[in-house]
């Protein structure tokens, strides 16, 4: 960085002229330094600065006093609230202003000594001792500023006249400086007086101030009542289009300089405020800012005044008891808890009560509820004009196509026994093909069937089409009439004797007439029926075996039935059972009414009934003989047991 000599010289001349001018014009009101003009020839920058400092210090003192006086002056008050501490507040606010200005200046020095020439027009004293303090904190808070910058756009430059310097962040709606000022106030409320004092300590030394700003401070003219949030209009938010442009007085350069100063200068305040910020504060700030904004935006010209007023209004909140942030939070929490408890203790609304019948809820309350329920039955289709038209279209189309939904009578496929058996022929020879080949053939057959079915219909179609085409072509190219080829007629040949066909009277004939006897009734497995003479011994034996089998089955059936009967109805069952008979016989034998015959195997008598009865006859004859001879009945009749006789 090097001094640009040409520019430097120009600046010095400019500074001198300004200084002289100000001295000439404003010497009555403001008593500045004893120097009547700024001497620049052969003077160092340092020396020029010192001259300016002299002037500015004096002026600053004057302005301080005047501000204090004006603040205490009740005629100038803009707010209806009584401001008891307004003077102190003002003093504080003044100090703050001066602090800001100081910061700004120091920052300026920082910035511009680097970039531009040291001879600076407006800002005066460097404060190197303060620089270090601010610079440290600046770096910490840098990002905040940048965020803010990004969020807000530089819509228009705010006027120089504001006490709070314009920042890059400011736009029509938002003034960073104002916000910070307010934050400062609220912070003081919360933090406590010690910190307030600490704050104040930092900014003890008051630096030079802008002449313009101090003058504008005095212009407390117009007052506007505070608007409620419901009465907001466009005017409140946005400056009227033309007015604002006119208010910009300073040169662009200056504005830019100031913006940058503001940014850097306000960083410190922000850091202070944000560090101890409670969540509630920003909302409050915004709210109060808005309230204050009502005042600002409607009167862009008087914006410079409002800042001081903001200070005053901000200070008024201090009157209420100062509660710590924790206390406030606790209060809110307890309020919430109280609300919830009340809610819980109250009776629940009917919607939450489970099963609610009609009596328990207000009338027609369900109509207001949206209900979900399942439909058990499918809803009937809604008949609209469209549906009827669709149906009619379908019906018309069907009629044209003649696609009736007639019922097709089902036919039971009757399988004749003969044909059924014909299907599998028995081959008694050893098969010529090996097993593998058999399976192979089967597999091929299976696959071929599929392909055959696919081809055939297409072939048929093609054949038909070709036939018809050739027919037409032939008819066209030949002059002679060629009749159509005879279509094979389907002739029904019935396997009936001519007699029955020719007969007029309807004769009911059955299948029997058409089929062979074997096809009607199966042949006897045993072959032809034989007489006893024709039967071979195997046949006879076979018959006997069959007979015995039949008997066996019958007997088994009977026994089974008996058992079942016994189980189901015990009394009935026991009447005819074997066990019962045996028991009875025993009883009789005991009693002596019946006697059992023992089978010794000698007698032929017990083997057949014929033998038995013939013997009996002989016996009787003998007896009669005896009886006639002796009339003795020596022989007792033998008891015949049922068991012994094999009947």
């Amino acid at each position, binding site marked *: 960085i090097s001094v640009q000599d040409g520019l430097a010289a120009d600046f010095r001349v400019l500074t001198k002229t300004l200084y002289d001018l100000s001295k000439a014009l404003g010497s009555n009101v403001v008593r500045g330094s004893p120097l009547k003009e700024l001497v620049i020839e052969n003077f160092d920058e340092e020396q020029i600065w010192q001259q300016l400092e002299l002037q500015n210090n004096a002026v600053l003192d004057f302005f301080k006093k005047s501000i204090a006086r004006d603040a205490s002056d009740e005629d100038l008050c803009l707010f209806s609230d009584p401001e008891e501490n307004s003077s102190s507040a003002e003093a504080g606010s003044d100090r703050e202003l001066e602090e800001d200005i100081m910061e700004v200046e120091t920052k300026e020095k920082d910035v511009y000594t680097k970039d531009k020439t040291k001879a600076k027009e407006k800002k005066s004293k460097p404060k190197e001792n303060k620089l270090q303090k601010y610079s440290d904190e600046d770096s910490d808070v840098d990002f905040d500023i940048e965020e803010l910058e990004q969020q807000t756009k530089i819509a228009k430059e705010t006027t120089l006249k504001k006490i709070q310097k314009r920042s890059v962040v400011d736009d029509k709606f938002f003034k960073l400086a104002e916000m910070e000022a307010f934050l400062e106030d609220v912070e003081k409320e919360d933090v406590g007086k010690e910190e307030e004092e600490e704050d104040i300590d930092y900014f003890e030394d008051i630096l030079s101030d802008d002449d313009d700003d101090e003058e504008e401070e005095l212009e407390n003219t117009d007052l506007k009542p505070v608007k409620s949030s419901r009465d907001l209009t466009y005017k409140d938010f946005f400056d009227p289009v033309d007015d604002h442009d006119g208010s910009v007085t300073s040169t662009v350069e200056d504005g830019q300089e100031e913006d940058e100063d503001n940014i850097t200068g306000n960083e410190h305040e922000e850091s202070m405020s944000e560090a101890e910020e409670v969540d509630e504060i920003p909302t409050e700030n915004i709210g109060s800012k808005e309230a204050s904004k009502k005042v600002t935006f409607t009167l862009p010209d008087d914006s410079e005044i409002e800042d001081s007023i903001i200070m005053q209004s901000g200070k008024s909140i201090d009157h209420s008891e100062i509660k710590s942030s924790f206390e406030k939070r606790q209060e809110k929490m307890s309020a919430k808890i109280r609300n919830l408890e009340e809610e819980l203790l109250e009776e629940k609304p009917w919607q939450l009560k489970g099963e609610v019948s009609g009596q328990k809820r207000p009338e027609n309350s369900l109509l207001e509820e949206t209900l979900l329920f399942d439909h058990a039955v499918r809803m009937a289709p809604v008949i609209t004009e469209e549906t009827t038209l669709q149906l009619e279209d379908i019906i018309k189309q069907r009629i044209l196509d003649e696609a009736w939904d007639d019922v097709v009578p089902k036919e039971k496929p009757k399988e004749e026994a003969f044909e059924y058996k014909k299907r599998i022929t028995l081959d008694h020879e*050893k098969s010529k093909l090996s*097993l593998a080949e058999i399976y192979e053939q089967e597999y091929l057959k299976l696959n071929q069937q599929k392909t055959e079915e696919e081809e055939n219909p297409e072939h048929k179609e093609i054949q038909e089409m070709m036939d018809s085409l050739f027919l037409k072509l032939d008819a066209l190219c030949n002059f002679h009439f060629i009749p159509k080829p005879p279509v094979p007629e389907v002739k029904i040949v019935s396997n009936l004797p001519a007699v029955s066909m020719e007969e007029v009277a309807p004769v009911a004939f059955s299948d029997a007439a058409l089929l062979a006897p074997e096809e009607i009734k199966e042949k006897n497995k045993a072959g032809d029926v034989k007489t006893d003479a024709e039967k071979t011994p195997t046949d006879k034996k076979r018959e006997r075996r069959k007979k015995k089998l039949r008997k066996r089955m019958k007997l088994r059936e009977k026994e089974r039935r008996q058992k079942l009967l016994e189980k189901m109805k015990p009394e009935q069952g026991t009447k005819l059972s074997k066990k019962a008979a045996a028991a009875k016989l025993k009883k009789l034998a005991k009693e002596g009414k019946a006697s059992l015959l023992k089978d010794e195997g000698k007698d032929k008598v017990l083997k057949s009934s014929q033998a038995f009865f013939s013997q009996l006859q002989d016996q009787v004859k003998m007896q009669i003989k005896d009886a006639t001879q002796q009339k003795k009945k020596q022989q007792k009749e033998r008891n015949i047991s049922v068991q012994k006789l094999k009947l």
Partner: protein
Amino acid sequence: APRQGGGETRRVPVPANRYTPLKENWMKIFTPVVEHLQLQIRFNLKTRNVEIKTCQETKDIGALTKAADFVKAFVLGFQVEDALALIRLDDLFLESFEVTDVKPLKGDHLSRAIGRIAGKGGKTKFTIENVTRTRIVLADTKIHILGSFQNIKMARTAICNLILGNPPSKVYGNIRAVASRAAERF
């Protein structure tokens, strides 16, 4: 997949009565095993075993089982062409049972039963084979059936009926009915 680890082997013992048929049909046996299944096969003269082994060219590990079954079928008495079906088709099985498993028969009854199964000139056996599409080997009291699962069942039922004493005509009727029903399904 190539063989993993050591090569696997199977051994099929050959009874003396099958030794000569094995020698005669050796070409027909080892060709499909080596060419189609990519296995190594040899007949160990000392132990009288046919040994089959996998090698590096073997692609399918199931081939070893197939080859072993093929050789076993031949050894049991089936023809080479019939046994070959085992290699070509996956779902063929081999079932063996004894006549005395069905019904305890002794002496003449046993012989008669076997005679019933065989029929005159092998007629009955061939009929069963043709109708059920199986192959049957009747070795004294042992019966071996080769075919697919359903067919084996049909043949087995028929043979059991014969053992139990049913006349062949009856058995024909039954198997015909069953076979036609089975064929209908497909």
